């Protein structure tokens, strides 16, 4: 079989804990082609972020490994840009400076004017041209996430990794961001792995949805091919039977075959949701202000 663009093969990982090693992932296998959009979905705590971090090179697998374009991934690098859930912009830099930091790194040796132009281009791409000289604490959550995406795109990564990029946003902003991402994707055709807990988001954006079993020792449970024509229109799809079929498939996987049982996890989840809600209120205020 021909080598695929990105090959996650036989990945297992154990974290050392005070109660002995904790096996988070067991034998995860996934082949991804260039330009594919993959969503990772699964219950919280199952190991989605861990998979992403291994591809990013931030964690090292205990067994197995990741091969990108024929080369093994051993450490993090700008060819695997990451968009984190909480934007993770440097708060002391403006939006422009945040992106510029990445641009200066990946376009080392190129003339200043060119780097400046590329920084601005990427900020325009995510519709943040108007606020690029503001600091992160002066813009809304959605805008911060846009800048985070611009920073990742500016590295022209081979794979774009996104860890619940819109998870902390309110529904309306999230829909906006999904549309923006669709638009960018149509233009750049990046290879993307995106973690999400939003079923609609997964079906709307992905070529394949990778569903993970519950941890510990989580692995890939099922993979769903989404054969919906692009461009996909949110409103049209709402009544589309194929779309609803895919949606139901994912829901069935999550809530019938791999329903969460253990209590402590669900209480933990409840607390995070409430704090998310508080975040959202904060964000909303800023959205109005902006």
């Amino acid at each position, binding site marked *: 079989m021909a080598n695929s663009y990105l090959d996650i093969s036989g990945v297992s990982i154990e974290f050392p804990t005070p109660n002995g090693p904790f096996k988070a992932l067991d034998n995860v296998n996934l082949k991804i082609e260039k330009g594919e959009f993959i969503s990772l979905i699964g219950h919280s705590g199952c190991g989605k972020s861990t998979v992403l971090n291994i591809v990013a090179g931030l964690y090292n697998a205990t067994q197995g490994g990741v091969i990108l374009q024929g080369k093994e991934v051993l450490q*993090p*690098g700008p060819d*695997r840009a990451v968009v*984190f859930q909480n934007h*993770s912009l*440097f708060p002391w830099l403006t939006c422009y400076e945040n992106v510029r930091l*990445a641009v200066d*790194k990946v376009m080392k040796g190129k003339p200043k004017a060119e780097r400046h132009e590329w920084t601005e281009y990427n900020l325009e791409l995510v519709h943040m041209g108007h606020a690029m000289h503001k600091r992160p*604490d002066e813009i809304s959550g959605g805008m911060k996430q846009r800048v985070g995406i611009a920073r990742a795109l500016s590295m022209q990564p081979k794979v774009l990794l996104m860890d619940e990029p819109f998870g902390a946003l309110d529904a309306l902003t999230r829909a906006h961001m999904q549309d923006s991402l669709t638009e960018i994707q149509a233009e750049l055709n990046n290879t993307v792995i995106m973690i999400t807990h939003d079923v609609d988001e997964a079906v709307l954006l992905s070529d394949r949805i990778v569903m993970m079993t519950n941890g510990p020792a989580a692995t890939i449970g099922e993979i769903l091919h989404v054969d919906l024509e692009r461009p996909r229109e949110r409103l049209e799809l709402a009544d589309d039977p194929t779309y609803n079929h895919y949606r139901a498939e994912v829901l069935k996987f999550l809530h019938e075959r791999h329903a969460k049982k253990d209590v402590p996890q669900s209480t933990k989840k409840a607390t995070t949701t409430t704090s998310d809600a508080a975040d959202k209120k904060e964000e909303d205020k800023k959205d109005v202000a902006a």
Partner: protein
Amino acid sequence: MLNRSIRFFELTGMNWLIPIANLLAGKNPKAQLNQLLASIGAPLVAFLIFLLLWSTAASNIKTSLGNLPGPSQTWEQFESLVDEHTAARDKEAAFYQRQEDRNAKRIEQGKEPKDIRPYTGAPTFFDQIFTSLYTVFIGFAVATIIAIPVGIICGLNSTIYTGLNPLIQIFRPVSPLAWLPIVTMVVSALYTTDDPFFAKSFITSALTVTLCSLWPTLINTTVGVSTIDKDLINVSRVLRLSWMTQIFKVVIPASLPMIFTGLRLSLGVGWMVLIAAEMLAQNPGLGKFVWDEFQNGSSNSLGRILVAVFVIGIIGFLLDRIMLTLQKSVSHDKTQEIR
């Protein structure tokens, strides 16, 4: 202009000046007056009550040096200290003038002019203030130069932190009074130049300040560095920033608010420690002024000591305000309230 001065008042923690600025700009005078009354009125009333309690208490407390001075006697002593200072300055000027006149005469007569001898009058109260400020800044600066790098290293490397932590915890609570004899002996043993640029007593007090004001900055820097958002560190790893870039572009800016919190505490500790060190070690400065007046035991002494107490307090307050302003200006989240 208005917005800029309001921003300045907010930054320096002088929020009560904002309504005055608005008032001067003619913005909604009635509301501004009410706000002014609320922000200035209460402290004013509290201060008046304090003065009242002080003067009644003072007139009822008899010491071996006479009555405890009340507000008005203290104020008189302040004025006399100012007078003494101006008198001393006039004397100094006159002293130099005399020497220059004499030299001018010698030149007229065709003789070599004599070297100008330095004035050696006793330091006034205000000279002592200056000495204390200078000492505290040097001690604080040395502490900062040591504490920030060590704090950064401890924050980055948990093994080093685990190693140093017990030492930090043991030395941190040690009172300056315990350090002082050791510092004095070590300084006399090691600092033995014939023509010292710094006085020994100065080095002793500055070092004592250093030893005591090291810890808040060290601990806060460590905490600041070790609690940097992991995602920010991950971003710098993804970008493959070099070690130096990581320190200067990520680690230091990210922990700057905590570093400044530490610096503010350190300067406060340093100022408090300095006064005690000066008293005990007879080093020049405000502490020595207080001690000398105490030993002096004239009828004015208690009043003068009270003046010193207020000056020490006000200077400490001003230093804290300066640090607060710096702390606010480096804070990432401008909406957060820092007091």
